[in-house]
């Protein structure tokens, strides 16, 4: 028994002003629901894992705005709940590039318990206004994945998150206050909170090291070897990450789900983009053991094992 993927959808933003983080997530969530043939009202839980937004809104959770936009149980019926309708619970979960896998783990537990019946995880990022050289690999993108519980002996069955805090300063980001200099216009503030992203040399190399180490430890815990993995689905959160990792693990290229180049560097959307590529190619449906992997700041590595019976097919997104 496990959590099954109903549908997955990832989209690249065009970088325009209207392609905000919220709209990217809205569009992906709507497309995902359409693919799965579900109504917004069917969604019991919505977790947003996006990190970078144009306005860096602190509250409410962006998930609440997305829930409102897609029309998922916006309000209680006048006579209260029950009577055939239930609400939606939304919040934001932040774990950088690993957020999608962590959120799947959270929803998986609630699906298993029967507390929810259909969960969605949405993601989106827009490159922060850095005002200078920053993180060149961050590409605007949004994604959504729909999950439900199934009694068949398959689905997401095991999760693992490992952190390597010795590398915590290789990738850092946050808002810092900068006073405005020079003459100030009548509507201008005294300064602004500027996003500062620091990526130190060696980050990518350490990311590959940590991802390899975490994968080997996870597989050891499960009693599996690399050869037991039919399909490796690595999130392309950072470009030039997948091939070095594949080589280090010794996984043949034909057992790796490569994400289209335009979705490379899609940060929190990376795992959904990778899953979408695996579904579109038909290979996720054929693989018995699929390993989903994401790595990001911390250094944090998240892994999930998706087991599947050969005859079961995930929604074909190419239709």
């Amino acid at each position: 028994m496990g959590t099954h993927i109903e549908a997955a959808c990832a989209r690249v933003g065009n970088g325009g002003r209207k392609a905000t983080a919220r709209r990217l997530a809205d569009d992906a969530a709507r497309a995902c629901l359409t693919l799965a043939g579900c109504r917004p009202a069917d969604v019991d839980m919505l977790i947003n894992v996006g990190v970078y937004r144009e306005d860096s809104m602190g509250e409410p959770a962006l998930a609440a705005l997305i829930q409102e936009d897609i029309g998922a149980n916006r309000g209680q019926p006048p006579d209260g709940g029950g009577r055939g309708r239930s609400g939606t619970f939304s919040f934001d979960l932040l774990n950088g590039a690993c957020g999608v896998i962590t959120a799947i783990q959270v929803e998986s537990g609630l699906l298993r318990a029967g507390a929810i019946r259909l969960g969605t995880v949405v993601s989106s990022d827009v490159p922060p206004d850095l005002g200078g050289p920053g993180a060149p690999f961050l590409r605007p993108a949004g994604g959504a994945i729909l999950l439900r519980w199934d009694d068949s002996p398959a689905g997401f069955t095991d999760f693992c998150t490992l952190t390597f805090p010795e590398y915590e300063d290789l990738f850092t980001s946050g808002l810092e206050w900068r006073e405005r200099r020079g003459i100030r216009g009548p509507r201008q503030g005294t300064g602004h909170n500027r996003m500062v992203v620091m990526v130190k040399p060696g980050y990518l190399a350490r990311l590959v090291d940590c991802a390899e180490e975490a994968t080997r430890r996870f597989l050891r815990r499960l009693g599996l070897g690399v050869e037991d993995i039919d399909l490796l689905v690595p999130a392309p959160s950072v470009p030039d990450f997948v091939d070095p990792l594949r080589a280090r693990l010794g996984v043949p290229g034909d057992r790796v789900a490569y994400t289209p180049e335009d979705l490379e560097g899609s940060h929190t959307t990376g795992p959904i983009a990778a899953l979408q590529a695996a579904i579109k190619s038909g290979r996720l449906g054929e693989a018995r053991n699929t390993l989903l992997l994401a790595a990001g700041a911390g250094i944090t590595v998240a892994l999930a094992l998706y087991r599947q019976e050969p005859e079961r097919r995930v929604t074909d997104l190419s239709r």
Partner: protein
Amino acid sequence: MSEVQKAQPEHWLTLQSAGSGSPWGCRIESVGVKLPAQRLTTKDLMSKTSHRTRIQLERLTGIHERHVVGPGENSFTLATGAARDCLSHSRHQASDIEMLISTSISRSKGRSSQSFEPPLSLYLKQAIGATQATSFDLSNACAGMLTGVFILQNLISHGEISCGMVVSGEYISHLSWNAARQIRSLFSKQLASLTLGDAGAAVLLERAPRGSGIDVIGFTTLAEHSRLCLAFPSSVGPGAQMYTKARTLQRVAIEDTAPLVAETIREAGIDLADIDYMIPHQTSARAIRAGTDAFVQRLGARPKHVVINIEEYGNTSSTTLFVALYKCLQEQKIRKHDRVMLLALASGIEIGIAIFTIDNLADSYGHAH
């Protein structure tokens, strides 16, 4: 794909209860708090507004003072202090924590007024020595800590983990200072920012025998009201600014919460009058009393006690429920066998309700400890 088959739900809330057949219970084992030493009275704050406002904030809200950070203090130090205090009241060690969830809205650390990556939880688990814990941050406005409890309740009661911690450090007094620069009248959307105070809180949850521990916990997001309270990085000073349609928010929260409280107590198989202590989110004394009166009118019963501690702490955002619970435990107001209801209300609108009975938790606090 076929349409998702949904059984006829009996409740609007996303609910978990001890009687749902899970193999284990989940109980609150310890609570910790970290308050900055420095205090700021409402009188002092209002004397520093840029414009003469004539707002009688203390009379309106019941807030006399609040704790505010001093040099070197921020969200991270408050959260770390609360987590350590929580462990000092616990039989567990940091190494027992299998999952650590940080739920601060403000995530200030070092030079950053808001830290994004790595998540604050990563630094926290290193600071307290919970190095083996799975960690992540969660953001759900003032309902963040109870949302973390909701997640841990699920993982603990189904045997995925046996011990977890939810922690939050809120350095939010900068919103008050930014509002004080701009606020002109009682009708300002930044008025609620003047009620905020700084605090850290932590709660440790552990596995309990089946059917014991937290009786019911439920949440919902009424997203049609998602824009009633919004906070953004500030352009007038370090930190953030918050804009609230306070009157609408209060009206909507009162109207919508009553049927959800009814759902929760029905699920727990009790009556509102069986609640010994109701601890609501602390916004203003007047709003809490109005909300309680509305429940009484709608549900025909009144909890025995309603906790209001806003006079000395103000609104400490995601930490209010556990700051209040901690104080009641320390003062031995809440005792063993008392039934407690935690009621989270937050922008979103998020409504979260938990009901549990105090057990050995009471033994670790107060003079007897």
